[in-house]
């Protein structure tokens, strides 16, 4: 019977190391199945976060052979031969074993200014299909936070967490900025306080997204172009002056957090 060797990170904030487990190889298993078998046999105290086992809850994010993956969607037979390394997400503080503290993301979520629609017209709000479809892609996000984990801006530079929202929230900002009913202008906020300029579009967030959201092409770059419209385009600036169109400031947007 073929065997599989798993090198799993065990430890907490005080330190840790790899533990090696050798198990029987079962056909069709995913990494999460093997982790569960380790819990059931060798290490009942092995901590790991999971829920749906269907790639829809975003709970079982970890790093498999050094790459952020959903453990429940990573088939063992797709991995190269040899020991399989499983470690917690590197960008976030460890709680225990494969479980990390992802509260950074909830802090960033709380900073997102909410949708600001105009007063309800008679008959209610109406959105057309082409506008609905544009934002629909961003709604597929399952908040696995692997895009945040792989983003080198915070993965390799902890200090940037204070002024960088990260790819998951750039798609939220993009969705709001592209919403036809939204009257808020978050461009100053995104540039000044959410650190859009820190992103150097290396597209790792897009590569790891389990929902295949084109984070860079459809959210981050369009946001960067909107910031260019507001700050680096003299033609757009002249157009605003001629039309006397006021530009909202970061402070205006920031006073309207999500409920």
């Amino acid at each position: 019977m073929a065997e599989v060797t798993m090198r799993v990170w065990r430890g907490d904030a005080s330190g840790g190391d790899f533990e090696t487990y050798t198990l029987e190889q079962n056909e069709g298993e995913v990494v999460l199945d093997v982790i569960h078998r380790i819990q059931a046999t060798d290490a009942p105290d092995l901590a790991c976060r999971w829920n749906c086992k269907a790639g829809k809850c975003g709970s079982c994010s970890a790093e498999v052979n050094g790459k952020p993956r959903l453990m429940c969607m990573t088939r063992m037979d797709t991995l190269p031969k040899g020991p399989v390394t499983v470690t917690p997400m590197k960008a976030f503080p460890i709680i225990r074993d494969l479980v990390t503290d992802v509260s950074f993301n909830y802090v960033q979520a709380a900073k997102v200014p909410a949708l600001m629609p105009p007063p309800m017209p008679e008959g209610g709000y109406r959105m057309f299909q082409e506008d609905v479809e544009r934002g629909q892609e961003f709604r597929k996000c399952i908040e696995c936070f692997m895009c945040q984990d792989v983003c080198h801006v915070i993965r390799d530079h902890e200090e940037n967490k204070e002024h960088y929202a990260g790819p998951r929230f750039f798609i939220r900002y993009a969705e709001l900025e592209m919403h036809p009913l939204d009257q808020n202008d978050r461009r100053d906020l995104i540039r000044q306080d959410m650190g859009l300029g820190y992103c150097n579009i290396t597209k790792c967030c897009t590569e790891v997204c389990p929902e295949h959201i084109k984070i860079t092409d459809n959210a981050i770059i369009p946001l960067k172009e909107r910031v260019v419209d507001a700050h680096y385009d003299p033609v757009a600036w002249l157009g605003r002056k001629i039309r006397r169109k006021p530009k909202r400031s970061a402070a205006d947007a920031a006073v309207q957090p999500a409920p």
Partner: protein
Amino acid sequence: MTALESSTKVQLGGTRGGPDEPTLRKDRWWIQPVVTVAILTAFVIYSTWAAFQNKYYYVGSLVHRDLISPFYSPCIGGSCVPGAKFAFAVNAWTLSPALLILIFPLGFRLTCYYYRRSYYRAFWWSPPSCSVADAHGSYSGETRFPLLMQNLHRYFFYAGLVFNVLLTYDAVLAFRQPGLGWGVTVGTIVLTVNATLLWLYSLSCHACRHLCGGQVKSFKAHPIRYKFWKFVTPLNAKHMNFAWASLVFVALTDVYVRLVASGAISDYKLF
């Protein structure tokens, strides 16, 4: 501190899990940066050499052809050879005319979102590949000079469109064979393919997509711009392919014109 302020305060400095190693990846992640460095370095060396040559960039009526290298078009320097000179010329400029114009295509590619991704990874190692450690101790991204200048991309895009029009004009003129009439040669096909690839590269550009319609909040309210956006969006998905194809082909076009102009080969007439 209010409840809102406390809920939006980032806690820094928690202990991270996993070993303190640059990467745990086992695949050959280094291949992509190596290939990128090889191609871009080869292109920079060749284009710099070609730009300083200041000869063999035009094939004229002596051999019944009208072919000009894209590195030298529009030829607006005072030293341009007869037949190649553009309607407008800076006669005081006696160095290679390529040095006057290459700054625009170079700027377009240098500030291109796709090339930025490639050279930040390959040359600057920031990061060299996904989940491989950044090679720098601190990082400010594109928030400061000089990388703040990447925001000028759309102006280079505009300049690139002008060059595309001129290179398309060159391709049309290439069908003209002075003294023989009109016909198709390998050279005309090379120049036409080159212009086509440059158009595809420009139209698939992210700035183009934004300016076509990406910047509007409501597609329903801007149906024409929505149509433009719908047209360029599939092209945008292939921007990487067009970026590499047009880069390699523009160099090959110069090589071809250079070989014909120097007499090393003759431009074969197809019909």
